[in-house]
Every structure is written in structure tokens, then in C-alpha cells.
């Protein structure tokens, strides 16, 4: 049974041992790696769990409190983000192999902080192949392509991208590299070899911290400092002080200075 008619669309390519789908308006042969909405040779950032977290504050308290935010039960240190709290200087959230925690100050309330955990073992070594590093065309919305609804959505004609889990008129987040890297002399420097300055995340790995004798990881969208990126390497230095210890890095296939 034919499930995908490749003759109709050059957006879809059935490889010898895989499948790739380009963004709308781009033939597969012209699509760069970052202009694909699916390529079975590499990982995409998949959401494993989400929750809203609030803390009323404890004006009578005099100490930090460690609160459990959610159990993700992934069995590894996951990539995760938080959005909502306008906290620019302190890393409040951390994760171990089972749960997400909040280290809250007694008098400071937190209102509707959004926690998103990804099914990505960010400290494990991974590197995707690089095939086409620069696109010769920009993507443009097209009525041809592929789309798959989210589990909670039922209308395949929906114009709300939030209803889809795959859509060739979208930009998903595909991954080039992740793994653990160590600081040297206050800097974090590592090769990415993607062929252009890429978008990135980093997360601090904490050993024997407030959760007890265990290793945890911070959110990957905490602010750590400034980076210098070129075609082969990223170097990150701290904003206020040198970086110390180990970090998990997550490099996206998306260029940091091209939007397509």
C-alpha cells in the first residue's frame, strides 16, 4: 500500500532508509538541514511534560525552600525550560533524573511559571550528520506538504499551528549536537562543526547541590553570559563572573543569523 505519493510533491523524499520533509515552498533538493520539518536521521525537540507552577511565598520564613514541581520520570537529566518569572539573576529551577524542583526564597511569590520538559537526554553525547548547510531558497507557506494534528486537536483544516505536531508550514527545532562539556579558565568552548554560527542552549550541571548528594541540571534558558560563535566553534563566557564546572550544551541546526 502506498502511504505517501512522492510524485506529487518534491517536498517529501523517501530515502533508502528514512524519510525527509522540507518546509513549504522548497524542493527537497534545495532544502538546507534547517529547512526540513522532518528528517529521520536526526533528533527533534519533543515535549515530554508541561506544567504551571506557583508559590504563594512565605513572609514569615527565613530560608530557601526546595519544592517539587513535577515528576518527569525520564530516567536522565532532561533539557527543560521555564517561562514567566522575570528572574534574571538566579537559577530557581533544577532537574534530576526523576523530577523538576524549585529552589524558592521564603518571601518571593512565583505566579504561573510555565515549566516545559523535553524528551532529550541533554548530557548524553549526540551529533547529527550535516548534509546541506546553507539553503538556496527561503521557505514560504504552501498548500502542498504534510501536517499531523496534536492528540487534543481534531480539525485538519485548523489555522492554529498549536493544533499540530508536524506541519510543513512551520519551523520545528531540529538538533545538531548535545552533550556534556567542561569549563576551562572561566570559559566554555566547544566544537559544533555545523558549518555556520548556530542557535544554542546551555544548562549548568550541579553536583551535590541543594537537592542532596545527587547531580542536577539547570533550565537551559537561564541566562549565563555571552557567546562567540563561528562556523566550527562556540565559546561562552560568564556575564558577571567566569563559568565554572560542567555544562550541558544543546546546539540547534538553525543558524543564529538566518531566519527560514
Amino acid at each position: 500500500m502506498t502511504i505517501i505519493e512522492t510524485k506529487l510533491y518534491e517536498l517529501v523524499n523517501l530515502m533508502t532508509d528514512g524519510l525527509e520533509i522540507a518546509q513549504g515552498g522548497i524542493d527537497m533538493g534545495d532544502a538546507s538541514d534547517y529547512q526540513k520539518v522532518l528528517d529521520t536521521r536526526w533528533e527533534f525537540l519533543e515535549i515530554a511534560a508541561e506544567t504551571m507552577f506557583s508559590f504563594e511565598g512565605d513572609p514569615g520564613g527565613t530560608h530557601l525552600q526546595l519544592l517539587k514541581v513535577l515528576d518527569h520520570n525520564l530516567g536522565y537529566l532532561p533539557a527543560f525550560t521555564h517561562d514567566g518569572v522575570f528572574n534574571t539573576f538566579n537559577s530557581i529551577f533544577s532537574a534530576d533524573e526523576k523530577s523538576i524542583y524549585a529552589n524558592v526564597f521564603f518571601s518571593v511569590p512565583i505566579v504561573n511559571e510555565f515549566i516545559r520538559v523535553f524528551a532529550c537526554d541533554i548530557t548524553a553525547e549526540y551529533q547529527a550528520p550535516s548534509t546541506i548547510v546553507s539553503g538556496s531558497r527561503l521557505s514560504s507557506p504552501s498548500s502542498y506538504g504534510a501536517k499531523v494534528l496534536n492528540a487534543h486537536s481534531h480539525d485538519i483544516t485548523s489555522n492554529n499551528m498549536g493544533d499540530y505536531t508536524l506541519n510543513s508550514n512551520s519551523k520545528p527545532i531540529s538538533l545538531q549536537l548535545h552533550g556534556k562539556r567542561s569549563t576551562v579558565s572561566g570559559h566554555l568552548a566547544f566544537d559544533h562543526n555545523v558549518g555556520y554560527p548556530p542557535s544554542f542552549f546551555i544548562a549548568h550541571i550541579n553536583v551535590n547541590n541543594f537537592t542532596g548528594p545527587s547531580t542536577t541540571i539547570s533550565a537551559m534558558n537561564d541566562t549565563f553570559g555571552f557567546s562567540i560563535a563561528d562556523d566550527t566553534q562556540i565559546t561562552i563566557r560568564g556575564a558577571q563572573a567566569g563559568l565554572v564546572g560542567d555544562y550541558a550544551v544543546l546546539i540547534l541546526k538553525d543558524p543564529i543569523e538566518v531566519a527560514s
Partner: protein
Amino acid sequence: MSNYGIRTTQNDQDVSSNNFSYDTTKKHLLVDLTQPQKQLAVLDNFVPGTALQLTGIVDDYKEEILLTIPHNNGFRPTPLSYYFIKSISGDPTQGGGYSQNIYFFSGSAGTFQDIITLRTWPDRSEFVHLVQDFSSGTIWSSPAPSFLMRIKYFIFSNPIDRVL
């Protein structure tokens, strides 16, 4: 959880391994490329604000909206932004370097902050420049107008104000 969709694995891995490279039964971060206003773009030669001032008033706060990007999601979407310094006071040798989600012109915990960031609302996203005192009574004038930036932003059609 739906039992319908597409699951793929990487080369040489069987689907029974449950080690999927893409699983459409799970949600993914997606930027909507069909919206009238670009939700994925690069802003070049961007001046990140005026000389906002803190005048020594404890807990003082001032902000200015630098750019508004409408969207039709109906919820607060997920922002991601990168700030590259092209030059400071016209001198490119003082530039260089990317910052993710927030760029600090200056500040420290317990004193004040002077930053640019991208925040989202149910109908729009905004690049905002703000100065904020943290109970220290700081006197400060922002150097933002001397900066020239290149900014890349993603606005994902994934909410941060509700769990779907």
C-alpha cells in the same frame, strides 16, 4: 494520548526500540510560518532603546516597547531570542558576542538591571527595554542608544500560559 500518527526512528534502529527520532503523538515546538507578521525573523541594525534612567528611587521601574509583533495564537506563545552586538558607539571592535533571551547592558543581583528581552502576550509579542531598581536606590542612565544589534527571534505556537 492518541494512537494515531507517525513514528520514525534513526537509521538501523527498529521501531520496537521505542527510540523515536520523531513521534507525532508527542508535542513539538513549532513556529507558525503562515502568520501575517513574521514569527521567525532577523532584525538587523536594531537600536535597543533610549537612555532610560534610574534616579535613585528605591524599586524604580521604567520600560519602553521597542517593537510589537502581533500574532493570532490566542495565548501567550513561547519566545526565544538571540542578541548580537554589532557595535557600541559606532565601534565594531567593541561588539561581538551573542546573548540568549536577555541582553544585559548592566546590572547585578540586589542592585539593578538594565536589559532588553522579548516577552509575549495573548495577542502580541514585544521587545522591551527596561531598567529596574532592586531596593538599592541606584542612579543610572542606560547606554542602550549607543548599541547596534542584530537580533534573531523565534515565537513558537506553544503556550506558556496554559497546559494543553
